[in-house]
């Protein structure tokens, strides 16, 4: 499957760009004439491996004369630039805008690529001890604490900051791996209080100090979500393998129906078809393995969730 998607990615600049080029080139009047120039330039840059420049030109072509096919090129270029989120967005938009005009095989390929890209995304959950703190990732505001959903990010280094309502600011650098789920706690400590003029008389209470951290509890609380999330990722990978090989399966079916024993090329075609069957069987085994692992992880996560709830915590929100 990886080879299929990799090959699809490598060929994309040529194959789909050709299609898009035809589409753009067919309307070389008005703004689309300028778009065609941008587009041709983008192809030249892509062929030279200058993807950043190619992306600019693709974007310019699309902005000048919106043609859904260019979105595919934008998606491929973003992928080559290591920007999975942007690639997913472009490919999703390509499928949406292209609608019925996208050939079935191309749609399946794009969907499989999206699934793979999503499987590679990391998730970062940010928590702070200051409600109302503005959280930013790589300078982009992602919300105000408390955040209830993890942020999907590309693998790599990211800068995370939280700015409390009183102006205090914390910044952390995190490096995420592909598909990694990470929790980040930004702790400001107790807020500064104004000293009262006269200290009130306080009742004397004997209380046990709260533990500063609970590593074991932390792990237990989050394990169900981690397990279930892992299961979902593996399930997505299984789906990706399936989608990536569905075209081959259709080829196998078509060839199988056309095989006529006793014809001159039967032997050769049968051998080729058997090779295809072997490849599909391998893919089938991969899907089975991934699905079983996904099911086991989700089941384990659900089980742990139920155990946690039985111990007094309720709801997924309690996990975070």
């Amino acid at each position: 499957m990886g080879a299929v998607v990799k090959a699809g990615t490598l060929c994309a600049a040529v194959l789909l760009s050709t299609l898009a080029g035809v589409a753009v080139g067919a309307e070389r009047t008005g703004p689309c004439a300028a778009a065609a120039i941008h587009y041709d330039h983008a192809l030249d840059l892509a062929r030279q491996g200058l993807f950043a420049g190619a992306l600019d030109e693709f974007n310019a072509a699309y902005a000048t004369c919106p043609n859904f096919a260019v979105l595919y090129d934008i998606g491929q270029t973003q992928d080559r630039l290591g920007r999975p989120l942007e690639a997913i967005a472009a490919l999703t938009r390509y499928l949406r805008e292209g609608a019925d005009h996208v050939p079935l095989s191309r749609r399946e390929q794009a969907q499989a690529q999206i699934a793979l890209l999503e499987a590679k995304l990391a998730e970062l959950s940010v928590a702070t001890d200051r409600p109302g703190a503005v959280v930013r990732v790589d300078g982009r505001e992602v919300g105000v604490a408390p955040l209830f959903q993890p942020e999907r990010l590309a693998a790599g280094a990211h800068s995370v900051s939280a700015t409390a309502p009183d102006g205090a600011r914390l910044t952390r650098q995190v490096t995420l791996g592909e598909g990694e789920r990470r929790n980040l706690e930004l702790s400001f400590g107790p807020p500064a209080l104004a000293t009262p003029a006269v200290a009130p008389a306080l009742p004397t209470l004997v209380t046990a100090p709260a533990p500063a951290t609970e590593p074991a509890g932390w792990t237990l609380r989050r394990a169900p979500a981690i397990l279930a999330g892992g299961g979902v990722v593996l399930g997505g990978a299984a789906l990706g393998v399936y989608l990536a090989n569905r075209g081959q399966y259709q080829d196998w079916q078509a060839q199988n129906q056309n095989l006529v024993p006793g014809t001159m090329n039967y032997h050769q075609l049968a051998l080729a078809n058997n090779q295809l069957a072997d490849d599909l069987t391998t893919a089938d085994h991969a899907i089975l393995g991934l699905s079983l692992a996904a099911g086991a992880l989700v089941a384990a996560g659900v089980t742990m969730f139920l155990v946690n709830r039985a111990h007094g915590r309720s709801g997924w929100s309690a996990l975070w």
Partner: protein
Amino acid sequence: MTGRAALGSLGLVVLAASGCFDVHAIDPGPAPFVLDDFDDGDVQPNDPNFDPWECYTINPQGAPNTCTPRLVSDGSPALVLDATIVDPADGLQQHGGAELATYARLPKDVSRFSVIVFNAKLQSGNPPISSDAILSVEIGCRTVPDADGIVPSRLYVSTGVEYGTVWTPSRVSLRNFGWQTWAPPQTDAGPGPCLQKADSVRFSVDAALPDGATGVFHLTVDDITFL
């Protein structure tokens, strides 16, 4: 929600366990066996186990029948049999004819093939042969014992094929081959035992001349292949 999640995961597992791609391997059969396409310009078959093509006259004994094999280039090199057949005026139709044949030194198993394909044309000369002339393909198997247990035997299986006076592609199923009733084998099985020990391939023409007639014919064959 947890129930739905559990059911979802179970469904995923069941879906995967049922198999996504229902594929199976098929028997590719043996690689095509090109007995001879004559493209090398000689009468030696492609398989060196087979001796060069020769011709033989058939029936009646003592008749002045003649045959000559030669190569021609008719689009591509092909093998021609020129034959003159005489049916003596003795009150009997002798079914004289001639054949092109190649004999193998060691038996070859052709039973895994399903068909034999070739191109052929049968043209009458002067005087012509009968329009009822019969073209047959014969596969010999001398190492298969005949009904009397004699080895080497004269056993072979054969089948008639349609022909024309211009190039006619023939495609003959090996299942259509049958034993000659005048030379039965020991076994009651079909042509399988003979096909498993094939040691000759022959293209035979029964000129079907009436009693006392003489006929000339030219049999051309090319691209003989087992598939």
